[in-house]
């Protein structure tokens, strides 16, 4: 009798990377649904288009790198990246814009660094930052929530498809697109926030759509927390920092600074909190590290939103903190069992 020799443990939890990615995709559903309801078919079309591209690029890169296709494609990480890019882009963004974004994310930010688990930067955010800098017009042409548009002229599926893949009259964009609340606030001129709120239709009426979308992302986030796919550390640290800073400034000068709820519910705050800054590969690794990582992003986002040139700053904040993650890791080792203090730094002679 000769039996198999194996090292312990002999049992494993039924879990896999693919499973983790599927759960993330599942958690995105409420957000995607809300976006579709309030901004039209564009989001769904972008997701499908981006996912197809992502799988194609991923397959091509795996082939170039001589890696088994099925094994790596099966982990669904490319689809998650694609979906995150798709929901970050304006729903009516042209097809090539999405294409460039996915190419940059999968080929450059992921595979050129060694593939899954090796990328120092969040691929979706690398793509977003590159697009925002290279194509600012296309990237800021968000369509207005439907509540602001005459119900009869809601863009149909085919119209939207045509807008993304074909060429349409500029009038089409004029009809559907508009500034986001963050844009409005950023380009308010000499007006106080209160005056902007009263004057701007986007802020007065359209804000509800943004609240709803944020709530949907939050739901997905809670699901991920519940399923223990992510830990609370980074999202809570980021939201708390952003809320704290905005409260302080709003309390100090309500005329010039937005209130905390506005910061929590507009732009990419909730999406980023639960789906972007929680990307484990490029963030700080320990629980303590993620607290620092999240807080840093919250701080940077507030600074960029309030004093920077861009209305929203998650891409830049995340990339900057990605840079800092290895450093954060050095100083956020947990205190191990039986030790009085946590170890810090590199260890050894360093």
């Amino acid at each position: 009798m000769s039996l198999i020799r194996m090292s312990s443990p002999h049992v494993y939890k039924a879990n896999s990377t693919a499973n983790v990615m599927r759960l993330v995709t599942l958690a995105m559903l409420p957000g995607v649904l809300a976006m579709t309801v309030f901004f039209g078919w564009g989001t769904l079309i972008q997701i499908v288009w981006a996912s197809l591209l992502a799988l194609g690029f991923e397959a091509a890169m795996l082939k170039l790198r001589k890696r088994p296709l099925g094994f790596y494609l099966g982990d669904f990480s490319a689809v998650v990246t694609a979906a995150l890019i798709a929901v970050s882009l304006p729903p009516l963004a042209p097809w090539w814009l999405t294409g460039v974004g996915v190419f940059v994310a999968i080929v450059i930010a992921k595979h050129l660094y060694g593939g899954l688990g090796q990328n120092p930067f969040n691929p979706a955010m690398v793509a977003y930052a590159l697009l925002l800098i290279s194509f600012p017009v296309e990237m800021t042409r968000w369509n207005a929530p439907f509540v602001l548009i005459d119900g009869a002229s809601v863009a149909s599926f085919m119209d939207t498809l045509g807008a993304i893949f074909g060429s349409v009259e500029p009038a089409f964009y004029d009809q559907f697109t508009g500034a986001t609340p963050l844009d409005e606030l950023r380009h308010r001129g000499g007006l106080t926030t209160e005056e902007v709120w009263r004057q701007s239709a986007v802020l007065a009426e359209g804000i509800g759509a943004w609240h709803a979308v944020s709530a949907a992302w939050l739901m997905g986030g809670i699901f991920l927390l519940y399923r223990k796919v992510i830990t609370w550390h980074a999202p809570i640290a980021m939201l708390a920092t952003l809320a704290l800073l905005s409260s302080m400034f709003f309390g100090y000068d309500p005329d010039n600074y937005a209130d905390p709820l506005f910061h929590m519910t507009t732009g990419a705050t909730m999406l980023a909190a639960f789906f972007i800054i929680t990307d484990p590969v490029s963030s700080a690794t320990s629980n303590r590290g993620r607290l620092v990582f999240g807080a840093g992003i919250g701080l940077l986002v507030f600074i960029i939103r309030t004093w920077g040139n861009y209305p929203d700053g998650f891409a830049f904040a995340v990339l900057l903190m990605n840079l800092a993650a290895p450093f954060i890791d050095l100083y956020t080792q947990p205190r191990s069992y039986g030790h009085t203090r946590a170890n810090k730094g590199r260890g050894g002679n360093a």
Partner: protein
Amino acid sequence: MGKVFAFHGGIHPPENKKQSTREPIGQLPLPKRLYVPLQQHIGMAASPIVEVGQTVLKGQLIAEPVGRISAALHAPTSGRVLSIGPHPVPHASGLDSDCICIESDGEDRWVEHQGIEDYAAMERDDLIEHIRQCGIAGMGGAGFPTDVKLHLGDDHIVNTLIINAAECEPYITADDMLMRERADQIIGGIRILHHLIKPSHVIIGIEDNKAHAIHTLEKALKGCELNIDIQVVPTKYPSGGERQLIKLLTDIEVPSGKIPADIGIVCQNVGTMSAVYRAVHFGEPLISRVVTVTGDAVARPQNFEALIGTPFADLLDAANLYEDRLYRLVMGGPMMGVTVEHDQIPVIKTTNCIIAASREEMPPAAPEQPCIRCGMCEQVCPAELLPQQLYWFAKGREFDKAKHHNLFDCIECGACAYVCPSSIPLVQYYRFAKSEIRTEEAEQRKADHARQRFEARQARLEREKAEKEARRKARAEEAAKAQKARKAPEASASGSPELDLNALKTAAAVARTKLKKAQKALDAARESGEGDLSALEAALASAQTSADKAQADLDKAQSGSAAPAGNDGPDIKQLKTAAAVARTKLKKARDALKNAETKGLDGLDKLRATVQELETRADEADKAYQQASGANTQDSAGSEASEAAPVDLKALKQQVSIMRTKLKKSEAALADLEGEERAQAEQALETLRQRHAEADRAFKAAEQAQLDKAAAQGVDLKKLKVDAAMARAAVTKLERSLDKTEEAEARASLESELAAARRKAEELNETLKQHETA
């Protein structure tokens, strides 16, 4: 009940415990053969005390513990020792190890044994020794000899005794069933330990999935006067880990690198308690234990009371193994157990469970995917490490960083690998890193050791060299001093004549004693006719010489200090001789010069100069001699004068040889010449020949002068030598008669005679020496 605290992390794998608790603990048919491994734990292997072929009884000691951390082994049943040698054992390495194989005789006859009626009245150390002799070892995890933990009380104050009944690993129910069926024995064992280490508090830690066991324990504890608590902890793997259980029950963490006893806690397993009870109350050594046999590949999962050494096959048979279903055979639990490759591996003291798993139950691990640093491992790590970081460091061989991340606090519980979504065999990475670090450290130690040895050797060689050099210097100095001391009396009374005198006296006395001894030995040898007479005679002679010399030194020193003016007799003599020699030489040289002048030879000037020089030297020698004989002072001119002769001789010799060469050349040239020229040349040649002959004669005359001088000295030397020898002989003779003489008056006269003789001998000796060196 006290408060239950929490430890970080932990997992909830499927328990799979129900299957094996349906039946009570079963008995096995007696196995045909039993294999008792000599080493079942860390520390030293036991040393067998039985021989192959010997008949043993059940419970008979078959191997003794060696050293402190070692456990005794006993025959699990009666029978015959078949062999003592390598056999497969349950160990992660998969290697064979020495086992005592016993063939059962089927009678299961016990050796005479009896329990201790009143252990409380017994000496503590004797009771612990009894437990050691019964081979009791930890039955939960590492199989650590129990007596070692009991002795800990000597240098540790133990406040808390923790009884580990958590049994947190899935599948295993051996402790559970033991508690259900033998709770009284366990409590009895706890009483004995309580008596031995006197803790202020005993806590039985048990997971909340063992309601039945908790109930029976509570019943058994009713009316117990001891401070024993049953603490129910939530079911979470690895709550049964020693450090985790201590945290759960006391909220104290065992410091890294320390043992629980360092914080006043001793942990014991319930199975061990039952074994202690049986050892003390019945005198039964640890020869059996409860083993869970479970898994999908057995039809009737059950717990069995199995003898130590029972092959797994016997247990699997008892549980009705489906051989075609068996895929993986695990000893221990699914989280930390080790796989065994076949079923002839024996049960040891720590074998709590055998899992016969089917392929569906424990499939091969999924292929490893890239780590996405999801951190799920961090959330479950009970040691609060960063498994994801340790993995990267182990993979990248960054062992310094791994150590900095407390790799060695990893208890290898497998919780991280269990939850890893990328199916990374994390524990294997940590084991690899640990063993690499250990190897590296061992090599480093070895290298350090070698370096230290090399450096020590170099230092030793240097030291030896220095010592040798110092000794050489000391010797040289001593020799120089001795030389000075010898010369001192001659030159002047300066220095420290007193000291030297004393030293010389001592030396002389020592030399005399030696001489006496040698003489006696020789006499004895002559009488008995045994021994090497010639050697003894030689020894005597050498002793005689050294004695003479010592005495002479002493006498000379004495006379020197008495008459600082010195004893210049021999020097004057020498000077006289030297002057005579110089004169003779001068005469010869003058003759040679005259001769050369008349013949008009080459080198006339040189000869003249030589003669002149010789004249001065002869004058000087004469003067010196006159001075010396007149004023009794010393002058070295004489010796110089005598030295001048060889220099002169050399020059003459050279001239002769030069002339000879010239002559030869001319002769050769002559052969080529014709007629008139030839006649002329022949004439010239003739002249040359004459000159050469003259020069040769001059040389020979000079040589003769040298020889004359040597002859003059030679006579002197010969005479001197004879005189010296005679003087020495006289001394010896006198010494001998002195030895023989008892009479005081005669002795005194002899002694004075001897002193005089010695002085004379020494004088002669000195003169002789000077002439020899001159």
